[in-house]
């Protein structure tokens, strides 16, 4: 995992992150999920490429069930882009680099 990615440990940590950072991309995953393992290196690349503009975080939905319920995660991987604390865009399933780049590019000023 890229060193630039924040591994969320609590709901409080998550809430502070999306409050304090303007652009946050969050990968909701779990260790039993094979498609999540496919997307992981793509998220690593996003974290490196956009490190100056976007904060990238991961939420393990088994550990952070409250967040999984709050954002009604029904299939993983689900990647959500938060802009000023609000959900701006969401991608579900295995997607290529370009899909995540698009969701960022179309939402950042």
């Amino acid at each position, binding site marked *: 995992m890229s060193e630039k990615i924040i591994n969320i440990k609590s709901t409080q940590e998550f809430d502070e992150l999306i409050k304090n950072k303007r652009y946050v991309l969050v990968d909701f995953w779990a260790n039993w*999920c094979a498609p999540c393992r*496919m*997307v992981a290196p*793509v998220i690593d690349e996003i974290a490196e490429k956009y490190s100056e503009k976007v904060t990238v975080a991961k939420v393990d939905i088994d550990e952070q069930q409250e967040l999984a319920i709050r954002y*009604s995660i*029904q*299939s993983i991987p689900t990647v959500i882009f938060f802009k000023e604390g609000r959900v701006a865009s969401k991608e579900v*399933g*295995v997607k*290529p680099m370009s899909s995540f780049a698009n969701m960022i590019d179309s939402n950042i000023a």
Partner: protein
Amino acid sequence: METVDIIIVGAGPAGLSAAINAVVRGKTVRVFSNKESLLAKAERVDNHLGFYNITGKELMDKFREHAKNMGVKIEEGKVVNILPLGSSFMVNINGEIAGAKKVILAMGVSKVKELPGESKLLGKGVSYCATCDGMLYRGKKALVWDQSQDAWEEANYLSDIGVNVTFVSKKAKPEKLKDNIIYVNDALTEILGGDSVESVKTGREEIQTDAVFILRDGLAPAALIEGLKMDGNFISVDRNMETSIPGVYAVGDITGRPLQLSKAVSEGLIAAQHAALQIDKIKES
């Protein structure tokens, strides 16, 4: 993750032709298949040069024997996702992730008939892979729509991890289906829900459920890989059998008419040779 030169999806005439031609050019291959080729159902084949008056099944046996003699192993498995990553690919075979430099799609004509509500609720309770999404429904209700030979295995898996499973099938109850799974002998006609799956309609009733696992033999090509250009039900390819995604090839019935054996075999050869050449170019540079 095990990485090979070429992953081939499908082991009919097109897939096996691609496999032996890749091996001839010194490439490593993995071939995945989860269903019998349509060729095996042909009663008599008279238009494949060199074979007069032969059954499709005999031909298919010969093809498999040929491939086996050249070291090609056909692995049982359903491919659920393919993801490009830089210059290579990651392929999800029912939960196992494998890597390849090139991918050749040879899974035959897709006769996938989508249910009303299916694509709208995909990822919102509708899933094509029990081992991928099953854990999300522990302690909840999931319905399995039996559309493939091994659907009962995935239903049992869901039951094992603590999902309350209802198995809907037009066929007789599978012998090995677990006792705690509710078996409904009916057909699914519609999936209902707003932001998530709420219920399904069958011929006779409406059943409340949190998830619907639709387990077909194959997935629609567009669901396998994002951004694949289609021409109706067929995959668009160029002269080298390469699709709109560089490094992904399509061969055989899946690329369009004529849906014939000789055409499938030829396309397998073209794709494998082109893919092998591209791999060699990368090695040299």
